[in-house]
């Protein structure tokens, strides 16, 4: 597989062309907005929780193939997960795309999210892959601010 095919795997292209769960959720329990000022990408994440479990998660916004596919696959993965599981998956996903895997891995495996492993070779694209996740994290924390990929804590 060429590096290009490794980055843009068919599953990523599929979720880019037909994003799942890209819609506004009426009356969400939690919502947060993320912004990458470097490329103008905006994403809003909507969450419905039921006794500590993600009942529904959707997103709105548009961006590059990596960020759109990442948001789409994130929503598919997180439905039905507990808060703690969702956070653990985020940590593991972050390790995968930054090339600094969390040791030892805890919680559930990444499953389909493994398709983002090619991102680690493109440091400039890590923020594309993690924008939706940072936004989700803010929603889980119920932080009110807009998440920016250019703020120091990311």
């Amino acid at each position: 597989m060429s590096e290009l095919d490794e980055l843009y795997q068919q599953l990523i292209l599929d979720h880019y062309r037909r994003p799942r769960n890209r819609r506004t959720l009426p009356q969400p329990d939690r919502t947060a907005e993320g912004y990458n000022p470097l490329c103008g990408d905006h994403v809003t994440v909507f969450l419905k929780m039921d006794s500590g479990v993600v009942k529904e998660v959707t997103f709105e916004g548009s961006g590059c193939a990596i960020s759109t596919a990442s948001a789409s696959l994130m929503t598919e993965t997180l439905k039905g997960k507990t808060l703690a599981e969702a956070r653990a998956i985020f940590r593991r996903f972050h390790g995968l795309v930054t090339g600094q895997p969390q040791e030892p891995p805890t919680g559930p495996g990444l499953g389909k999210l493994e398709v983002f492993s090619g991102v680690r070779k493109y440091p400039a694209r890590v923020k594309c892959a993690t924008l939706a996740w940072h936004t989700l994290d803010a929603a889980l924390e119920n932080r009110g601010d807009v998440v920016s990929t250019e703020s120091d804590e990311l």
Partner: protein
Amino acid sequence: MSTVRTLVRETPPEAPLEVRRIRADFPALLQEVNGHPLVYLDNAATTQKPQVVIDCVRNYYERDNANVHRGLHALSMRATEAYEAARHKVQRFINAGQAEEIVFVRGATEAINLVAQTFGRARVRAGDEILISEMEHHSNIVPWQMLCEETGAVLRVVPMDGRGELCIEDYERMLGARTRLVAVTHVSNALGTVNPVEHLIARAHSAGAVVLVDGAQAVPHMPVDVRALDCDFYVFSSHKTFGPTGVGVLYGRHELLESMPPYQGGGEMISAVTFEKTTFREPPARFEAGTPNIAGAIGLGAAVEYLEHLGRDAIMAYERDLLSYGTAALAEIPQVRLIGTAGEKAAILSFVLKDIHPHDVGTVLDTLGIAIRSGHHCAQPVMQHFGVPATCRAALAFYNTHEEIDALAAGIRQVVKVFA
């Protein structure tokens, strides 16, 4: 001094440019990236350096390295002589009236900040107006916003049209008795638009306003004569002009520089210091506090000599041909929408590819060894004007070729295939 002079080629300039031979002057161009010959089209971000510039900086550190304007020893005198010679080279390069009108700074950004913080603070009052254009780089927006915030002056923005041309009638209407300063780009970094600065300057002067021209994208690509333009301030960066990073030029009309307070305080810029009072030196020393980027300035001197040697008219003619070849090549790809189609353009091709995000375009092209810029180009208001979050930008220079543009076009077709 001999170090610099002997490194410049002695042969007379050739016209038209012999691009094959010129490419051999740029070691960075002769490499493979991701298994493909490098196609470097990110010249508006920074340009590659010719061997004469690299050698010149190296020679300075190997032989002449010393602080300037203070030591009495041989190395310090050589360093001072080379540094001041670079100032004269830049003066000649932009046809300034005297070398004292050339201030070495860190780059175009610092040059604009210097003018805002010295001329601006001394001369701009509440209610005054500063006129900029909609196509400015952030570096020619933010310093003026900061100044307006401090002084109570008003920032006004001259609009551009759908082709990326400045609306001259609006400009003329907005100029008035309150206009203290006009800050406008010579060439737009995001669109390539060449502004009619000579006309803009003449009109501003009749309204009694001072004019700063941002020449960062003009100086590397066309002859610039600050006296013919009659501008008050002209700024550019070395690293976009085939010279080292970390150095740039502020040209200021001498009587203006003389009337301006210092920018930063420190060594080099003073005549005498007591704890009660400090007297400041004349320009340009007044604005060069601390040890300057000596190697950078000397390297810039070598770079401008290199450009003069190639011939700036020949460079402009060659790049004009590249631009029309590139424009035609992109026009053949139905998914391409060119952003910036002004009548007068420098060799910058800004475009979007249907709804494919510029970052995806940039990544795919990179795997083919093609370097372009994807993003907002530090010109977010320009992106807003055209309703796009970002564009892809191929910025050409005199060392680029038709074959490289063909490679770009083929790469774009591959991008379309991947994301179709």
